Protein backbone atom coordinates (compact mmCIF):
# COMPACT_ATOMS: atom_id res chain seq x y z
CA UNK A 1 0.00 0.00 0.00
CA UNK A 2 1.19 3.47 -0.77
CA UNK A 3 0.03 6.54 1.08
CA UNK A 4 1.21 10.05 0.73
CA UNK A 5 0.55 13.68 0.50
CA UNK A 6 2.98 15.94 -1.27
CA UNK A 7 3.25 19.44 -2.60
CA UNK A 8 5.83 20.79 -4.97
CA UNK A 9 5.94 24.29 -6.36
CA UNK A 10 7.56 25.48 -9.54
CA UNK A 11 7.87 29.24 -9.60
CA UNK A 12 6.68 31.03 -12.70
CA UNK A 13 9.53 31.75 -15.06
CA UNK A 14 9.56 34.15 -18.01
CA UNK A 15 8.86 31.33 -20.46
CA UNK A 16 6.63 29.14 -18.30
CA UNK A 17 3.72 29.64 -15.99
CA UNK A 18 4.11 28.55 -12.40
CA UNK A 19 2.86 25.15 -11.38
CA UNK A 20 1.98 23.59 -8.10
CA UNK A 21 1.49 19.94 -7.40
CA UNK A 22 -0.66 19.29 -4.35
CA UNK A 23 -1.97 15.75 -4.13
CA UNK A 24 -2.97 13.19 -1.59
CA UNK A 25 -2.88 9.62 -2.76
CA UNK A 26 -3.63 6.27 -1.29
CA UNK A 27 -3.46 3.12 -3.36
CA UNK A 28 -3.78 -0.53 -2.45
CA UNK A 29 -3.05 -3.67 -4.41
CA UNK A 30 -4.54 -3.37 -7.88
CA UNK A 31 -4.26 -0.85 -10.65
CA UNK A 32 -4.70 2.80 -9.79
CA UNK A 33 -4.79 5.02 -12.83
CA UNK A 34 -3.58 8.59 -12.66
CA UNK A 35 -5.64 10.13 -15.40
CA UNK A 36 -5.54 13.64 -16.75
CA UNK A 37 -4.27 15.98 -19.43
CA UNK A 38 -0.54 16.48 -20.09
CA UNK A 39 1.09 18.78 -17.61
CA UNK A 40 -1.36 18.06 -14.81
CA UNK A 41 1.28 16.51 -12.54
CA UNK A 42 0.72 12.77 -13.10
CA UNK A 43 4.29 11.85 -14.00
CA UNK A 44 5.60 14.27 -11.41
CA UNK A 45 3.69 12.28 -8.80
CA UNK A 46 5.41 9.08 -9.97
CA UNK A 47 8.76 10.88 -9.85
CA UNK A 48 8.13 12.00 -6.28
CA UNK A 49 7.35 8.42 -5.29
CA UNK A 50 10.37 6.98 -7.12
CA UNK A 51 12.67 9.62 -5.67
CA UNK A 52 13.54 11.48 -8.87
CA UNK A 53 11.82 14.65 -7.72
CA UNK A 54 11.92 16.05 -4.22
CA UNK A 55 8.61 17.39 -2.92
CA UNK A 56 8.60 20.62 -0.91
CA UNK A 57 6.33 19.34 1.80
CA UNK A 58 4.51 16.19 2.79
CA UNK A 59 5.38 12.57 3.32
CA UNK A 60 5.23 9.34 1.38
CA UNK A 61 4.80 5.92 2.93
CA UNK A 62 5.24 2.65 1.08
CA UNK A 63 3.85 -0.17 3.21
CA UNK A 64 5.38 0.69 6.58
CA UNK A 65 8.46 2.41 5.21
CA UNK A 66 8.87 6.17 5.07
CA UNK A 67 10.22 7.10 1.66
CA UNK A 68 9.98 10.80 2.17
CA UNK A 69 9.13 13.05 5.05
CA UNK A 70 9.72 16.75 4.71
CA UNK A 71 9.40 17.41 8.42
CA UNK A 72 12.03 14.95 9.61
CA UNK A 73 14.15 15.39 6.48
CA UNK A 74 13.87 11.78 5.36
CA UNK A 75 14.42 11.45 1.62
CA UNK A 76 15.47 7.96 0.56
CA UNK A 77 17.54 7.71 -2.60
CA UNK A 78 15.84 6.09 -5.62
CA UNK A 79 18.07 3.04 -5.06
CA UNK A 80 16.51 2.42 -1.65
CA UNK A 81 12.86 2.84 -2.57
CA UNK A 82 11.96 -0.54 -4.11
CA UNK A 83 9.93 1.05 -6.86
CA UNK A 84 9.63 -0.76 -10.18
CA UNK A 85 9.50 2.15 -12.59
CA UNK A 86 8.54 1.43 -16.20
CA UNK A 87 9.55 4.43 -18.26
CA UNK A 88 7.64 5.93 -21.12
CA UNK A 89 10.29 5.02 -23.68
CA UNK A 90 11.16 1.79 -21.88
CA UNK A 91 14.71 3.02 -21.09
CA UNK A 92 16.23 -0.37 -21.78
CA UNK A 93 19.99 0.17 -21.81
CA UNK A 94 20.87 0.18 -25.51
CA UNK A 95 24.38 -1.20 -25.03
CA UNK A 96 23.20 -4.30 -23.19
CA UNK A 97 21.30 -7.32 -24.39
CA UNK A 98 17.91 -8.00 -22.90
CA UNK A 99 19.46 -10.59 -20.59
CA UNK A 100 22.12 -8.11 -19.45
CA UNK A 101 19.44 -5.50 -18.88
CA UNK A 102 17.61 -7.87 -16.58
CA UNK A 103 20.83 -9.00 -14.92
CA UNK A 104 21.71 -5.36 -14.23
CA UNK A 105 18.57 -5.09 -12.13
CA UNK A 106 19.30 -8.38 -10.33
CA UNK A 107 22.88 -7.43 -9.49
CA UNK A 108 22.47 -7.67 -5.73
CA UNK A 109 21.14 -11.21 -5.75
CA UNK A 110 23.35 -14.20 -5.06
CA UNK A 111 24.56 -15.76 -8.32
CA UNK A 112 22.38 -18.86 -8.30
CA UNK A 113 19.28 -16.98 -7.37
CA UNK A 114 20.01 -14.40 -10.01
CA UNK A 115 20.18 -17.09 -12.67
CA UNK A 116 16.99 -18.70 -11.50
CA UNK A 117 15.17 -15.40 -11.32
CA UNK A 118 16.40 -14.32 -14.74
CA UNK A 119 15.29 -17.53 -16.40
CA UNK A 120 11.97 -17.37 -14.62
CA UNK A 121 11.34 -13.78 -15.57
CA UNK A 122 12.34 -14.27 -19.22
CA UNK A 123 10.02 -17.25 -19.41
CA UNK A 124 7.14 -15.44 -17.78
CA UNK A 125 7.32 -12.54 -20.20
CA UNK A 126 7.91 -14.82 -23.23
CA UNK A 127 11.34 -13.33 -23.79
CA UNK A 128 13.55 -16.41 -23.48
CA UNK A 129 14.25 -16.58 -27.22
CA UNK A 130 14.99 -12.87 -27.39
CA UNK A 131 17.32 -12.69 -24.39
CA UNK A 132 20.45 -12.29 -26.51
CA UNK A 133 19.10 -9.38 -28.54
CA UNK A 134 19.84 -5.73 -28.08
CA UNK A 135 16.95 -3.30 -27.56
CA UNK A 136 17.20 -1.93 -31.11
CA UNK A 137 16.60 -5.47 -32.39
CA UNK A 138 13.31 -5.73 -30.52
CA UNK A 139 9.82 -4.58 -31.49
CA UNK A 140 7.91 -2.04 -29.44
CA UNK A 141 5.86 -4.71 -27.71
CA UNK A 142 8.92 -6.79 -26.90
CA UNK A 143 10.71 -3.76 -25.47
CA UNK A 144 7.62 -3.05 -23.40
CA UNK A 145 7.61 -6.57 -21.96
CA UNK A 146 11.35 -6.37 -21.42
CA UNK A 147 11.13 -3.16 -19.45
CA UNK A 148 8.31 -4.50 -17.28
CA UNK A 149 10.26 -7.72 -16.70
CA UNK A 150 13.31 -5.67 -15.69
CA UNK A 151 11.32 -3.47 -13.33
CA UNK A 152 9.84 -6.50 -11.59
CA UNK A 153 12.92 -8.68 -11.30
CA UNK A 154 14.06 -7.45 -7.91
CA UNK A 155 10.59 -7.76 -6.38
CA UNK A 156 9.62 -4.11 -5.95
CA UNK A 157 6.87 -3.11 -3.57
CA UNK A 158 5.10 -0.91 -6.05
CA UNK A 159 5.02 -0.70 -9.84
CA UNK A 160 4.96 2.69 -11.53
CA UNK A 161 4.00 2.72 -15.20
CA UNK A 162 4.38 5.94 -17.16
CA UNK A 163 2.08 5.89 -20.20
CA UNK A 164 2.75 2.25 -21.06
CA UNK A 165 0.38 2.16 -24.04
CA UNK A 166 1.87 5.15 -25.78
CA UNK A 167 3.11 4.44 -29.26
CA UNK A 168 1.75 0.89 -29.39
CA UNK A 169 -0.78 -0.11 -32.02
CA UNK A 170 -4.21 -1.46 -31.08
CA UNK A 171 -3.20 -5.12 -31.04
CA UNK A 172 -0.10 -4.61 -28.91
CA UNK A 173 -2.13 -2.47 -26.59
CA UNK A 174 -4.57 -5.30 -26.05
CA UNK A 175 -1.58 -7.57 -25.30
CA UNK A 176 -0.35 -4.99 -22.82
CA UNK A 177 -3.73 -4.85 -21.08
CA UNK A 178 -3.78 -8.63 -20.82
CA UNK A 179 -0.26 -8.59 -19.41
CA UNK A 180 -1.10 -5.96 -16.79
CA UNK A 181 -4.28 -7.84 -15.86
CA UNK A 182 -2.21 -10.98 -15.31
CA UNK A 183 0.37 -9.09 -13.30
CA UNK A 184 -2.26 -7.50 -11.16
CA UNK A 185 -3.65 -10.80 -10.00
CA UNK A 186 -0.19 -12.24 -9.35
CA UNK A 187 1.46 -9.26 -7.71
CA UNK A 188 -0.67 -8.20 -4.80
CA UNK A 189 0.95 -4.76 -4.75
CA UNK A 190 -0.10 -1.35 -5.92
CA UNK A 191 0.35 -0.55 -9.58
CA UNK A 192 0.20 3.16 -10.41
CA UNK A 193 -0.38 3.82 -14.08
CA UNK A 194 -0.21 7.22 -15.72
CA UNK A 195 -2.23 7.76 -18.86
CA UNK A 196 -4.29 10.30 -20.72
CA UNK A 197 -5.98 7.67 -22.85
CA UNK A 198 -9.55 6.99 -21.66
CA UNK A 199 -9.55 3.54 -23.25
CA UNK A 200 -6.48 2.56 -21.24
CA UNK A 201 -7.97 4.07 -18.14
CA UNK A 202 -11.20 2.08 -18.32
CA UNK A 203 -9.52 -1.10 -19.54
CA UNK A 204 -7.18 -1.34 -16.57
CA UNK A 205 -8.27 0.77 -13.64
CA UNK A 206 -9.58 -0.53 -10.36
CA UNK A 207 -9.44 2.99 -9.12
CA UNK A 208 -8.94 6.33 -10.87
CA UNK A 209 -7.49 9.64 -9.77
CA UNK A 210 -8.42 12.43 -12.12
CA UNK A 211 -5.70 15.06 -12.27
CA UNK A 212 -6.37 18.65 -13.10
CA UNK A 213 -3.76 21.39 -12.84
CA UNK A 214 -1.64 19.66 -10.21
CA UNK A 215 -4.55 18.53 -8.07
CA UNK A 216 -6.70 15.47 -7.89
CA UNK A 217 -10.05 16.82 -9.00
CA UNK A 218 -11.97 13.62 -8.51
CA UNK A 219 -11.43 9.99 -7.60
CA UNK A 220 -13.38 6.79 -7.74
CA UNK A 221 -13.85 3.49 -9.49
CA UNK A 222 -14.34 3.59 -13.26
CA UNK A 223 -18.04 2.84 -12.80
CA UNK A 224 -18.47 5.64 -10.32
CA UNK A 225 -16.69 8.05 -12.61
CA UNK A 226 -18.80 7.05 -15.57
CA UNK A 227 -21.84 7.84 -13.49
CA UNK A 228 -20.48 11.05 -12.12
CA UNK A 229 -17.21 12.54 -13.34
CA UNK A 230 -17.46 15.31 -10.74
CA UNK A 231 -16.10 18.17 -12.80
CA UNK A 232 -16.70 19.36 -16.31
CA UNK A 233 -13.03 18.98 -17.21
CA UNK A 234 -13.11 15.37 -16.09
CA UNK A 235 -16.30 14.82 -18.07
CA UNK A 236 -14.64 16.18 -21.18
CA UNK A 237 -11.50 14.14 -20.59
CA UNK A 238 -13.35 10.88 -20.07
CA UNK A 239 -15.49 11.60 -23.09
CA UNK A 240 -19.05 10.66 -23.95
CA UNK A 241 -20.71 13.07 -21.55
CA UNK A 242 -23.17 15.78 -22.39
CA UNK A 243 -22.77 18.84 -20.22
CA UNK A 244 -25.86 20.99 -19.67
CA UNK A 245 -26.35 24.26 -17.92
CA UNK A 246 -29.59 24.90 -16.07
CA UNK A 247 -31.13 27.33 -13.65
CA UNK A 248 -32.48 26.11 -10.35
CA UNK A 249 -36.21 26.91 -10.30
CA UNK A 250 -37.09 25.21 -7.04
CA UNK A 251 -35.62 22.87 -4.47
CA UNK A 252 -37.51 20.28 -2.50
CA UNK A 253 -35.17 18.74 0.07
CA UNK A 254 -37.96 16.71 1.61
CA UNK A 255 -38.64 14.81 -1.58
CA UNK A 256 -35.00 14.95 -2.58
CA UNK A 257 -35.87 16.55 -5.89
CA UNK A 258 -35.56 19.88 -7.62
CA UNK A 259 -37.05 21.77 -10.52
CA UNK A 260 -34.68 22.96 -13.21
CA UNK A 261 -35.06 25.46 -16.03
CA UNK A 262 -33.37 24.15 -19.12
CA UNK A 263 -33.45 26.76 -21.88
CA UNK A 264 -36.77 28.06 -20.55
CA UNK A 265 -38.43 24.66 -20.12
CA UNK A 266 -38.98 23.28 -16.67
CA UNK A 267 -38.05 19.70 -15.82
CA UNK A 268 -37.67 17.69 -12.68
CA UNK A 269 -34.09 17.40 -11.49
CA UNK A 270 -32.13 15.39 -8.95
CA UNK A 271 -31.47 16.33 -5.37
CA UNK A 272 -29.03 19.25 -5.36
CA UNK A 273 -26.66 20.04 -2.55
CA UNK A 274 -25.69 23.56 -1.65
CA UNK A 275 -27.81 25.26 -4.25
CA UNK A 276 -30.32 28.08 -4.06
CA UNK A 277 -33.19 29.04 -6.24
CA UNK A 278 -31.88 31.06 -9.17
CA UNK A 279 -28.38 29.48 -9.21
CA UNK A 280 -26.97 28.44 -12.52
CA UNK A 281 -25.54 24.97 -12.28
CA UNK A 282 -23.87 22.44 -14.54
CA UNK A 283 -25.12 18.92 -15.01
CA UNK A 284 -23.89 16.01 -16.98
CA UNK A 285 -25.62 13.10 -18.58
CA UNK A 286 -24.79 10.39 -21.07
CA UNK A 287 -26.40 9.76 -24.48
CA UNK A 288 -27.67 6.33 -23.40
CA UNK A 289 -29.55 7.81 -20.45
CA UNK A 290 -31.82 10.05 -22.54
CA UNK A 291 -34.79 9.11 -24.73
CA UNK A 292 -36.15 10.46 -27.97
CA UNK A 293 -39.93 11.03 -27.96
CA UNK A 294 -42.36 12.35 -30.52
CA UNK A 295 -45.07 13.51 -28.12
CA UNK A 296 -44.77 15.93 -25.19
CA UNK A 297 -44.84 14.68 -21.60
CA UNK A 298 -43.22 14.89 -18.19
CA UNK A 299 -39.57 15.85 -18.24
CA UNK A 300 -39.60 16.17 -21.99
CA UNK A 301 -38.13 19.21 -23.69
CA UNK A 302 -38.93 20.32 -27.20
CA UNK A 303 -35.87 20.21 -29.51
CA UNK A 304 -34.92 20.39 -33.17
CA UNK A 305 -33.02 17.50 -34.70
CA UNK A 306 -29.66 18.78 -35.89
CA UNK A 307 -28.08 15.64 -37.32
CA UNK A 308 -27.80 11.89 -36.90
CA UNK A 309 -24.72 9.68 -36.85
CA UNK A 310 -25.07 6.00 -37.65
CA UNK A 311 -23.07 3.71 -35.36
CA UNK A 312 -22.94 -0.09 -35.56
CA UNK A 313 -25.36 -0.69 -32.70
CA UNK A 314 -27.27 2.56 -32.46
CA UNK A 315 -28.08 5.90 -34.01
CA UNK A 316 -26.69 8.94 -32.31
CA UNK A 317 -29.12 11.82 -32.63
CA UNK A 318 -27.92 15.32 -31.92
CA UNK A 319 -30.51 17.89 -30.94
CA UNK A 320 -30.46 21.63 -30.45
CA UNK A 321 -29.23 22.80 -27.06
CA UNK A 322 -26.43 20.24 -27.13
CA UNK A 323 -28.55 17.21 -26.25
CA UNK A 324 -27.21 13.94 -27.64
CA UNK A 325 -29.21 10.71 -27.50
CA UNK A 326 -28.28 7.17 -28.51
CA UNK A 327 -31.26 5.28 -29.96
CA UNK A 328 -31.26 1.57 -30.88
CA UNK A 329 -31.42 1.18 -34.68
CA UNK A 330 -34.82 -0.57 -34.89
CA UNK A 331 -36.40 1.97 -32.60
CA UNK A 332 -35.05 4.80 -34.71
CA UNK A 333 -36.83 3.43 -37.82
CA UNK A 334 -40.17 3.88 -36.05
CA UNK A 335 -39.32 7.22 -34.48
CA UNK A 336 -37.94 8.98 -37.50
CA UNK A 337 -41.19 9.32 -39.45
CA UNK A 338 -43.25 10.34 -36.44
CA UNK A 339 -40.64 12.84 -35.38
CA UNK A 340 -40.53 14.47 -38.78
CA UNK A 341 -44.34 14.74 -38.72
CA UNK A 342 -44.98 15.82 -35.13
CA UNK A 343 -41.69 17.24 -33.88
CA UNK A 344 -39.06 16.03 -31.42
CA UNK A 345 -38.95 15.87 -27.65
CA UNK A 346 -36.04 14.65 -25.56
CA UNK A 347 -36.92 12.99 -22.29
CA UNK A 348 -34.44 13.71 -19.52
CA UNK A 349 -35.07 11.43 -16.51
CA UNK A 350 -34.05 13.05 -13.24
CA UNK A 351 -31.87 9.99 -12.52
CA UNK A 352 -29.87 10.71 -15.65
CA UNK A 353 -28.71 14.11 -14.42
CA UNK A 354 -25.71 14.62 -12.14
CA UNK A 355 -24.49 17.91 -10.86
CA UNK A 356 -20.86 18.71 -11.67
CA UNK A 357 -18.62 21.65 -10.89
CA UNK A 358 -16.59 24.02 -13.00
CA UNK A 359 -18.86 24.05 -16.02
CA UNK A 360 -18.06 25.68 -19.27
CA UNK A 361 -21.17 24.89 -21.31
CA UNK A 362 -20.36 24.01 -24.88
CA UNK A 363 -21.52 26.45 -27.50
CA UNK A 364 -23.88 25.15 -30.12
Amino acid at each position, binding site marked *: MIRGRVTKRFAAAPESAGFQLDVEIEAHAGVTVLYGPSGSGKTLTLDCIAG*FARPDTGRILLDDRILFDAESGVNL*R*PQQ*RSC*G*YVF*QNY*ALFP*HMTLRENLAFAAY*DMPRLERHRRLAEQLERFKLTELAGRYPHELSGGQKQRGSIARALISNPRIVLLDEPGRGLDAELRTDLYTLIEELKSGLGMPVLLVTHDPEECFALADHVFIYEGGRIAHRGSPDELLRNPGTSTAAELLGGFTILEAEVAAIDPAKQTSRLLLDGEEIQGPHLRGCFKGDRIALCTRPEELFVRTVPGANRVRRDLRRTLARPQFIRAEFSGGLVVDVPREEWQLLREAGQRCGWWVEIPATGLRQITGARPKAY
Partner: protein
Amino acid sequence: MGIDWFPLWLSLEVAALATAISLLFGIWLAWVLANKQFRGKDILDALTTLPLALPPTVLGYYLLVVIGRSSWIGRAWEKITGTELVFTWRAAVIAAALHAIPLLVKSSRAALENVDSAYERAARSLGASEWRLFWRVSIPLARRPVAAATALAFARSLGDFGTTFMIAGDIPGRTQTAAIAIYDAAEANNTRVAATLAIVISVVTAAIVYFANRLETRKRA
Protein backbone atom coordinates in the same frame (compact mmCIF):
# COMPACT_ATOMS: atom_id res chain seq x y z
CA MET B 1 73.60 13.04 -40.68
CA GLY B 2 70.72 10.77 -39.68
CA ILE B 3 67.69 12.22 -37.99
CA ASP B 4 67.49 11.87 -34.23
CA TRP B 5 64.09 10.29 -33.59
CA PHE B 6 64.29 10.70 -29.84
CA PRO B 7 62.15 13.88 -29.72
CA LEU B 8 59.35 12.11 -31.57
CA TRP B 9 59.34 9.10 -29.24
CA LEU B 10 59.52 11.39 -26.23
CA SER B 11 56.55 13.37 -27.54
CA LEU B 12 54.49 10.22 -28.06
CA GLU B 13 55.35 8.90 -24.60
CA VAL B 14 54.63 12.24 -22.96
CA ALA B 15 51.34 12.56 -24.84
CA ALA B 16 50.29 9.02 -23.93
CA LEU B 17 51.03 9.55 -20.24
CA ALA B 18 49.41 12.99 -20.23
CA THR B 19 46.30 11.58 -21.89
CA ALA B 20 46.09 8.76 -19.36
CA ILE B 21 46.36 11.24 -16.48
CA SER B 22 43.81 13.61 -17.99
CA LEU B 23 41.41 10.71 -18.59
CA LEU B 24 41.59 9.85 -14.92
CA PHE B 25 40.87 13.39 -13.76
CA GLY B 26 39.00 14.66 -16.78
CA ILE B 27 36.24 12.06 -16.92
CA TRP B 28 35.65 12.31 -13.23
CA LEU B 29 35.55 16.11 -13.40
CA ALA B 30 33.26 15.95 -16.42
CA TRP B 31 30.89 13.61 -14.61
CA VAL B 32 30.85 15.82 -11.52
CA LEU B 33 30.16 18.90 -13.64
CA ALA B 34 27.48 17.10 -15.64
CA ASN B 35 25.62 15.48 -12.75
CA LYS B 36 26.15 17.26 -9.50
CA GLN B 37 24.88 20.56 -8.24
CA PHE B 38 27.13 22.24 -5.72
CA ARG B 39 28.35 25.65 -4.70
CA GLY B 40 31.30 26.90 -6.68
CA LYS B 41 30.44 24.75 -9.70
CA ASP B 42 30.76 27.77 -12.00
CA ILE B 43 34.19 28.53 -10.59
CA LEU B 44 35.35 24.93 -11.05
CA ASP B 45 33.98 25.03 -14.57
CA ALA B 46 35.89 28.24 -15.32
CA LEU B 47 39.07 26.89 -13.75
CA THR B 48 39.00 23.79 -15.94
CA THR B 49 38.66 25.92 -19.04
CA LEU B 50 41.36 28.40 -18.07
CA PRO B 51 44.39 26.48 -19.43
CA LEU B 52 42.77 26.66 -22.89
CA ALA B 53 42.51 30.42 -22.73
CA LEU B 54 45.69 31.46 -20.90
CA PRO B 55 48.84 32.15 -22.91
CA PRO B 56 51.07 29.06 -22.60
CA THR B 57 53.91 31.07 -21.14
CA VAL B 58 51.66 32.41 -18.40
CA LEU B 59 50.62 28.87 -17.57
CA GLY B 60 54.28 27.85 -17.67
CA TYR B 61 55.20 30.63 -15.29
CA TYR B 62 52.54 29.61 -12.78
CA LEU B 63 53.68 26.03 -13.01
CA LEU B 64 57.25 27.08 -12.32
CA VAL B 65 56.01 28.86 -9.23
CA VAL B 66 53.86 25.92 -8.09
CA ILE B 67 56.13 22.96 -8.84
CA GLY B 68 59.54 24.66 -9.06
CA ARG B 69 62.45 23.64 -6.83
CA SER B 70 61.63 26.26 -4.22
CA SER B 71 57.92 25.48 -3.99
CA TRP B 72 56.68 23.03 -1.39
CA ILE B 73 55.40 20.65 -4.05
CA GLY B 74 58.78 20.73 -5.74
CA ARG B 75 60.59 20.16 -2.47
CA ALA B 76 58.26 17.38 -1.42
CA TRP B 77 58.73 15.67 -4.78
CA GLU B 78 62.49 15.91 -4.43
CA LYS B 79 62.37 14.48 -0.94
CA ILE B 80 60.25 11.50 -1.97
CA THR B 81 61.74 10.59 -5.34
CA GLY B 82 65.19 12.10 -5.07
CA THR B 83 64.81 13.83 -8.43
CA GLU B 84 63.65 17.23 -9.52
CA LEU B 85 60.29 17.76 -11.11
CA VAL B 86 60.96 20.76 -13.33
CA PHE B 87 63.21 20.40 -16.36
CA THR B 88 62.54 16.66 -16.61
CA TRP B 89 60.20 14.76 -18.92
CA ARG B 90 57.76 14.57 -16.01
CA ALA B 91 57.29 18.32 -16.22
CA ALA B 92 56.54 17.90 -19.91
CA VAL B 93 53.81 15.40 -18.96
CA ILE B 94 52.30 17.90 -16.52
CA ALA B 95 52.36 20.65 -19.14
CA ALA B 96 50.72 18.41 -21.73
CA ALA B 97 48.10 17.11 -19.29
CA LEU B 98 47.09 20.63 -18.30
CA HIS B 99 46.28 21.30 -21.93
CA ALA B 100 44.55 17.99 -22.47
CA ILE B 101 42.25 18.12 -19.44
CA PRO B 102 40.12 21.10 -20.55
CA LEU B 103 39.53 19.54 -23.94
CA LEU B 104 38.60 16.25 -22.39
CA VAL B 105 36.37 17.77 -19.71
CA LYS B 106 34.50 20.00 -22.15
CA SER B 107 33.68 17.27 -24.66
CA SER B 108 33.08 14.51 -22.13
CA ARG B 109 30.81 16.71 -20.10
CA ALA B 110 28.72 17.46 -23.17
CA ALA B 111 28.68 13.76 -24.02
CA LEU B 112 27.63 12.78 -20.50
CA GLU B 113 24.97 15.45 -20.40
CA ASN B 114 23.66 14.10 -23.69
CA VAL B 115 23.01 10.67 -22.24
CA ASP B 116 19.23 10.38 -21.90
CA SER B 117 18.49 10.95 -18.23
CA ALA B 118 15.89 8.18 -18.38
CA TYR B 119 18.74 5.64 -18.46
CA GLU B 120 20.29 7.13 -15.38
CA ARG B 121 16.97 7.24 -13.59
CA ALA B 122 16.28 3.67 -14.63
CA ALA B 123 19.66 2.53 -13.32
CA ARG B 124 19.13 4.30 -9.99
CA SER B 125 15.65 2.98 -9.52
CA LEU B 126 16.90 -0.54 -10.34
CA GLY B 127 19.18 -0.20 -7.34
CA ALA B 128 22.48 0.61 -9.05
CA SER B 129 25.03 2.55 -7.00
CA GLU B 130 26.35 5.79 -8.47
CA TRP B 131 29.62 3.98 -9.14
CA ARG B 132 27.97 1.20 -11.10
CA LEU B 133 25.77 3.73 -12.89
CA PHE B 134 28.89 5.59 -13.96
CA TRP B 135 30.83 2.57 -15.21
CA ARG B 136 28.04 0.41 -16.58
CA VAL B 137 25.66 3.03 -17.97
CA SER B 138 26.96 6.58 -18.34
CA ILE B 139 30.43 5.82 -19.70
CA PRO B 140 29.38 3.05 -22.10
CA LEU B 141 26.61 5.25 -23.49
CA ALA B 142 28.98 8.17 -23.95
CA ARG B 143 31.94 6.05 -25.04
CA ARG B 144 32.20 7.28 -28.62
CA PRO B 145 32.31 11.01 -27.96
CA VAL B 146 34.54 10.40 -24.93
CA ALA B 147 36.91 8.34 -27.08
CA ALA B 148 36.89 11.09 -29.70
CA ALA B 149 37.67 13.67 -27.01
CA THR B 150 40.49 11.46 -25.73
CA ALA B 151 41.97 11.24 -29.21
CA LEU B 152 41.85 15.02 -29.57
CA ALA B 153 43.38 15.45 -26.13
CA PHE B 154 46.19 13.12 -27.21
CA ALA B 155 46.75 15.19 -30.36
CA ARG B 156 46.80 18.37 -28.31
CA SER B 157 49.33 16.91 -25.84
CA LEU B 158 51.53 15.87 -28.71
CA GLY B 159 52.05 19.40 -29.86
CA ASP B 160 52.44 21.54 -26.76
CA PHE B 161 55.25 24.02 -27.08
CA GLY B 162 55.13 27.08 -24.85
CA THR B 163 54.39 25.58 -21.47
CA THR B 164 56.63 22.58 -22.05
CA PHE B 165 59.45 24.89 -23.06
CA MET B 166 59.01 26.93 -19.88
CA ILE B 167 58.95 24.12 -17.35
CA ALA B 168 60.69 21.19 -19.05
CA GLY B 169 63.19 23.17 -21.01
CA ASP B 170 65.02 22.13 -24.10
CA ILE B 171 67.54 19.49 -23.08
CA PRO B 172 68.32 17.31 -26.12
CA GLY B 173 67.99 13.64 -25.33
CA ARG B 174 66.11 14.39 -22.09
CA THR B 175 63.30 16.90 -22.39
CA GLN B 176 63.43 17.96 -26.02
CA THR B 177 60.01 17.03 -27.45
CA ALA B 178 59.20 17.01 -31.16
CA ALA B 179 57.60 20.46 -31.11
CA ILE B 180 60.69 21.94 -29.48
CA ALA B 181 63.05 20.00 -31.73
CA ILE B 182 61.28 21.43 -34.77
CA TYR B 183 61.77 24.93 -33.37
CA ASP B 184 65.46 24.27 -32.73
CA ALA B 185 66.00 22.75 -36.17
CA ALA B 186 64.28 25.65 -37.89
CA GLU B 187 66.34 28.14 -35.87
CA ALA B 188 69.52 26.31 -36.85
CA ASN B 189 68.43 26.28 -40.49
CA ASN B 190 68.32 22.49 -40.41
CA THR B 191 65.36 22.32 -42.81
CA ARG B 192 65.58 18.58 -43.41
CA VAL B 193 65.07 17.70 -39.75
CA ALA B 194 62.44 20.42 -39.27
CA ALA B 195 60.48 19.32 -42.33
CA THR B 196 60.68 15.60 -41.53
CA LEU B 197 59.54 16.02 -37.93
CA ALA B 198 56.84 18.49 -38.99
CA ILE B 199 55.48 16.09 -41.59
CA VAL B 200 55.51 13.10 -39.22
CA ILE B 201 53.71 15.09 -36.52
CA SER B 202 51.21 16.39 -39.08
CA VAL B 203 50.45 12.92 -40.38
CA VAL B 204 49.98 11.48 -36.88
CA THR B 205 47.78 14.40 -35.82
CA ALA B 206 45.73 14.31 -39.02
CA ALA B 207 45.15 10.59 -38.56
CA ILE B 208 43.99 11.15 -34.99
CA VAL B 209 41.64 13.97 -35.96
CA TYR B 210 40.20 11.87 -38.78
CA PHE B 211 39.69 8.98 -36.38
CA ALA B 212 38.09 11.27 -33.78
CA ASN B 213 35.68 12.74 -36.33
CA ARG B 214 34.69 9.30 -37.54
CA LEU B 215 33.98 8.23 -33.99
CA GLU B 216 31.64 11.15 -33.54
CA THR B 217 29.83 10.97 -36.87
CA ARG B 218 29.18 7.24 -36.65
CA LYS B 219 27.48 7.81 -33.35
CA ARG B 220 24.98 10.12 -34.98
CA ALA B 221 24.27 7.83 -37.92
